[in-house]
């Protein structure tokens, strides 16, 4: 996102306080010992790495002039009878052997940090998502949330892994090589540095361009993914309306755009490695030329020249890498920022500190104990709600449902019925006003306790791709087989389950059998009632049931949940009319309340609905 603000459905957060780099450091800090030992190992391994070219130099100088005195270093004479070439060979192998150990250590430690970070960050991200409210998920594409935990997390891991290693390694390598080169020949060193610096600068410029191109490609890939995702999810509609050709056309257009973006990036990025090779080669040529002259003039031995070249070869990659790693940094930081964008979205539904403070750990037993103290009386006090902060969905709701009583909500599509019941388990919090359960403000009780009291069946229930049984026991603890049998009977599922291949152990959803709308609704019902809720909320939960199944299930619930408070949304008078209170909702307000018998005598919406349904029923009878 380019703006420094992030907004979801009218609520806006400033991103100014996001500091991806600082946060990244906090994650890394946890592993400072690995960081220190890894850096230490890089230093050792690089120091050792400087030795082989020196030994090669000694060997070559010896070969070029076998008669001269062989000294391992200018200061330490080495005078044994052993063949100097053997000494050099053995030393090279020994040095590399030691280096290997340290190389292993730094790879394991420094790169290990990135793996730890990946684990920590992914867990934190998931944890954070769990705290966010429903509005966030409604207004953020699933693919977008996912891509931050896949592509972006990977970029961050790379930044830490590759970035960290490269920085530590390059810094040490560059300074060590420069020292060695200067020791051999200062002038040559300066000459070779000039192209190096130019290379590094150009690589940096490249990186910026590559990053931009890369981002626009990522966006396009994500557009292609979304299109395929929607196409597969809505294939029924597409096929039913014979839209296949149009879809293919749209798909091709998106992909052509992808190719265009890829190729325009390729124009820049394809230059990168060839240019690197060119620049390195050119430096070698320069040194061949300058160094060759020095050798000819006798200012430099051939061995020194070869060693110099060896150090130069070691230097080229780290210097280029500094430029190259900029890309990783830019990508990694951009990705960390994207992850942070979601991490700073504040949870809107949470326990106030004073509620949690001083309370024992909210163990299951504690919650279960507390739950039993509640009776389930619900009260709405001058409640109002708005999804976006401007247009109010609910206003001035005052309503009470006594414990063990039932409330039916009736009203046109979009009148706010579902919104109202969603406020009870705090899927959303009201903009204004209070909801009390047994006289306690629901905001003043732990969210876990509140939700433990409630059994909620959504109008479009979400089931997990797991077994039916797992879906039923989803929110409940200490469940026996008897409990499961009991709720399947109440939900009228028992006979249907017997027909399924593996009964209750049948896997449903994307990886298993597909259920009918009515079956899904009743599994969701079983899931809600197995926890023996004090308050049962049924949001149009029977819309896909046929009349006789609905009748049966309703009767079951009524007899089993005699002492629970029930809130029911339905359009069918037959379902509604037995409620202890019926509330009519129109445009976010409650326009009428009362018993069925009272309401039909007034001239409001209920009366109209009743008459119309009665009229329809009579029509059936008459015909």
């Amino acid at each position, binding site marked *: 996102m380019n703006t420094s603000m992030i907004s979801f459905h009218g609520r806006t957060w400033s991103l100014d306080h996001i500091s991806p780099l600082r946060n990244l450091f906090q994650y890394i800090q946890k592993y400072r010992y690995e960081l220190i030992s890894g850096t230490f190992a890089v230093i050792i391994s690089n120091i050792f790495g400087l030795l082989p070219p020196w030994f090669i130099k000694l*060997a*070559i100088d010896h*070969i070029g002039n076998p008669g001269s005195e062989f000294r391992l270093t200018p200061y330490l004479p080495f005078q044994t009878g052993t063949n100097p*070439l053997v000494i050099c060979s053995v030393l090279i192998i020994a040095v590399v*052997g030691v280096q290997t*150990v340290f190389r*292993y250590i730094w*790879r*394991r430690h420094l790169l*290990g940090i990135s*793996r730890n970070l990946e*684990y920590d960050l992914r*867990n934190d991200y*998931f944890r954070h998502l*769990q705290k*966010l409210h429903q509005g966030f998920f409604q*207004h953020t594409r699933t693919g977008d949330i*996912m891509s931050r935990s*896949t592509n972006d997390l990977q970029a961050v891991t790379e930044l830490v892994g590759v970035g960290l290693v490269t920085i530590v390694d390059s810094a040490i390598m560059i300074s060590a090589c420069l020292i060695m080169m200067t020791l051999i020949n200062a002038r040559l060193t300066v000459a070779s540095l000039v192209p190096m610096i130019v290379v590094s600068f150009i690589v940096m410029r490249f990186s910026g361009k590559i990053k931009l191109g890369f981002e626009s490609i990522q966006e396009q890939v994500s557009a292609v993914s979304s299109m*395929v995702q*929607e*196409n*597969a*999810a809505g*294939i*029924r509609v*597409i096929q*039913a309306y014979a839209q*296949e050709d149009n879809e*293919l056309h749209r798909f091709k257009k998106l992909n052509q755009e992808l*190719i265009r973006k890829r*190729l325009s990036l390729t124009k820049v990025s*394809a230059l990168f*490695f*060839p240019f690197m090779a*060119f620049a390195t080669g050119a430096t070698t*040529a320069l040194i061949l*030329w300058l160094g*060759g002259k020095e*050798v000819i003039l006798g200012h430099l031995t051939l061995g020194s020249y*070869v060693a110099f070249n060896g150090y130069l070869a070691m230097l080229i990659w780290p210097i280029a890498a500094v430029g190259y790693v900029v890309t990783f940094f830019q990508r990694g930081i951009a990705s960390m920022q994207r992850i942070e964008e979601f991490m700073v979205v504040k949870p809107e539904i949470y326990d106030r500190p004073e509620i949690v403070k001083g309370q024992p750990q909210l163990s299951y037993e504690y919650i279960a104990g507390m739950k039993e103290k509640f009776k389930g009386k619900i009260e709405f006090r001058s409640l109002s709600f708005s999804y976006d902060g401007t*247009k109010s969905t609910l206003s001035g709701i005052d309503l009470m449902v006594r414990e063990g009583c039932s409330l039916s909500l009736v009203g046109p*599509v*979009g009148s706010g019925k579902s919104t109202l019941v969603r406020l009870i388990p705090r899927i959303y919090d009201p903009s204004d006003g209070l909801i009390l359960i047994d006289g306690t403000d629901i905001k003043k009780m732990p969210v*876990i306790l509140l*939700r433990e009291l409630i059994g909620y069946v*959504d109008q*479009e229930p979400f089931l997990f791709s797991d077994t039916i049984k797992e879906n039923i026991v*989803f929110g409940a603890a200490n469940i026996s087989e008897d409990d499961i049998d009991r709720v399947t009977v109440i939900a009228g599922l028992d006979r*249907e389950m017997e027909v399924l291949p593996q009964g209750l152990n049948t896997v449903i959803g*994307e990886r298993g059998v597909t259920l009918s709308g009515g*079956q899904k609704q009743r599994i969701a019902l079983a899931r809600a009632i197995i926890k023996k809720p004090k308050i049962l909320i049924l949001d149009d939960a029977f819309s896909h*049931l*046929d009349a006789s*199944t609905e009748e049966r299930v309703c009767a079951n619930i009524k007899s089993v949940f005699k002492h629970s408070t029930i809130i029911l949304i339905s359009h069918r008078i*037959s379902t509604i009319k037995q409620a202890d209170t019926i509330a009519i909702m129109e445009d976010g307000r409650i326009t009428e309340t009362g018993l069925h018998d009272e309401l039909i005598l007034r001239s409001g919406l209920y009366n109209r609905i009743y008459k119309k349904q009665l009229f*329809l*029923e009579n*029509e*059936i009878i008459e015909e």
Partner: protein
Amino acid sequence: MNLREDEILGKPYDLRLMKRFMAYCRPYIKQIAASVLLLIVISMLQLSGPYLVKVAIDSYILKGNRTGLNLIVTAYLIVLFFTFILEYMKDYIMQLSGQKIMFDIRADLFAHLQKMSLSFFNHNPTGRIVTRVVDDVETLNELFAEQIVETVSDMLTLISIVIVLLLLDWRLASLTFIVIIPLLYATRLYRDRARKAYRNMRANLARLNSYMQENIVGMGTVQVFNRSEENFKRFDTINKTNWHQQLKSLTYYAIYFPVIEIFLAVAIGIIIWYGGGEAIKGAVQLGVLVAFIQYVQRFFQPIKDLSQKYNVLQSAMASSERIFNLMDTPEDIPNPPDPVVLEEVKGEIEFRDVWFSYNSEDPVLKGINFHLKPGESVAIVGATGAGKTSIINLIGRFYDIQKGRILIDGIDIRSMDKFYLRKQIGMVLQDAFLFAGDIEDNIRLRESRIPLEKVYEAARYVNADIFIEKLPKGYNEDVQERGSTLSLGQKQLISFARALVFNPKILILDEATSSVDTETELLIRDALGKLIKGRTSIIIAHRLSTVRYVDKIIVIDKGEIAEMGSHDELLRQKGIYHDLHQLQVGK
């Protein structure tokens, strides 16, 4: 298809798959040939570097020839410049043809998916289909643009270094090559372990991501049912496994690559010890020795690269296998080669002894027979799971029947063009699916030839206009993924309008208004009288009041037609319909 096929990795090389892939490469054979040619030239140019250095040392530096040195440096620079230009050309051509090949594969794959039946989509999660079309093709692109070419180039480098070394000094070369044996052994050891680790990692990562995805989509449910803690624990377990696997794979990597350097050191040691001795004796030139050291260093790079590429190569093979498997999945609802052409569909529908099952074992429909005259309307009634929805799915040929015939205007639907057939049918389904876009897009499905007036008219007909006009942007109001900001009732009204705007000959309503309030439903129902006029209509409804408008009623019970007739006839029969009716009128 195997359910866990995402987690299976194939062989690194599979001839059959390569052939399939090559077929896609054929149109771009010229470009590919050009880049391979460029590649060969480039590798030769690259190899000439150390040789030029050798010549510089032996022929000019040691002999003090500065003019010669200038010349050779100039030659070196020219070589470098050409390498640069050619390499750029090669990369660009390669990307260009790679992208075009991917485009072709992707388009073919997507087009094939459009032909798949509903049962295919029921059994293949959306996430998997997206992976096929997006990620797998992307992996294949990597295989093409980088791996194949680079592997070829690595191989070429290896072979040419061997040849050059042998030409320079075959004895020294042979001695140096001794190192290759343990090197290859170590590489093999690493490769096998790394492969296994990589495979486990991918399998687990697939689990990790699908678990996360499901939790995001179902987050509301997770929260309301207090499952956050438990689901986090499960997530953490999978994440921790991933972490373990990552570290394991890292350990292999951290051992193998440093160890390779030891072999390199040994090779250099041999060159210095033996070659150096020979050089002192004058049997080998000093420049040869320097060139040898440089070549040997270059020899190790491709080997390291190849051992890393192995994984990518392997997963690319697996990707291509999955892609081609999908392309080979036969269309289970094939369009007839010579479809019967109908000038105009009148809308007569006939079911003749239709048997149908989703899994070819448990029949859902058992011998269904009925006949609808053009313009006639029927209501299908019955318990959930009785087979009502199956009947209407069969009319649009979303599934094929096992026995019997379905005729429209007397013609078997299997001999009609299925797209033409479906265009005649307007379907409003229980689960109203909306696309991301705006409301207008969702009603006319981006068909610009349908004028906006028709869209408004259809919305008015089903009374969707009331709520749509209240939205801030009206018909241009954004619709989120899956229509998540609209209520189920609102979504149903939109998909109802969608069916009407296409002006179908046959209208099918499957509990199309189950979540719509009574007033709106009544208004729709009033309109229904007009809507079904002149259209053959099939209506599934749980509320029997709809039957007022239909000519006949079919009662389905356990996959069979239990009763059929007009409302009055059925009431008189005192069967299932009679009982249902009694229940609804509350008697």
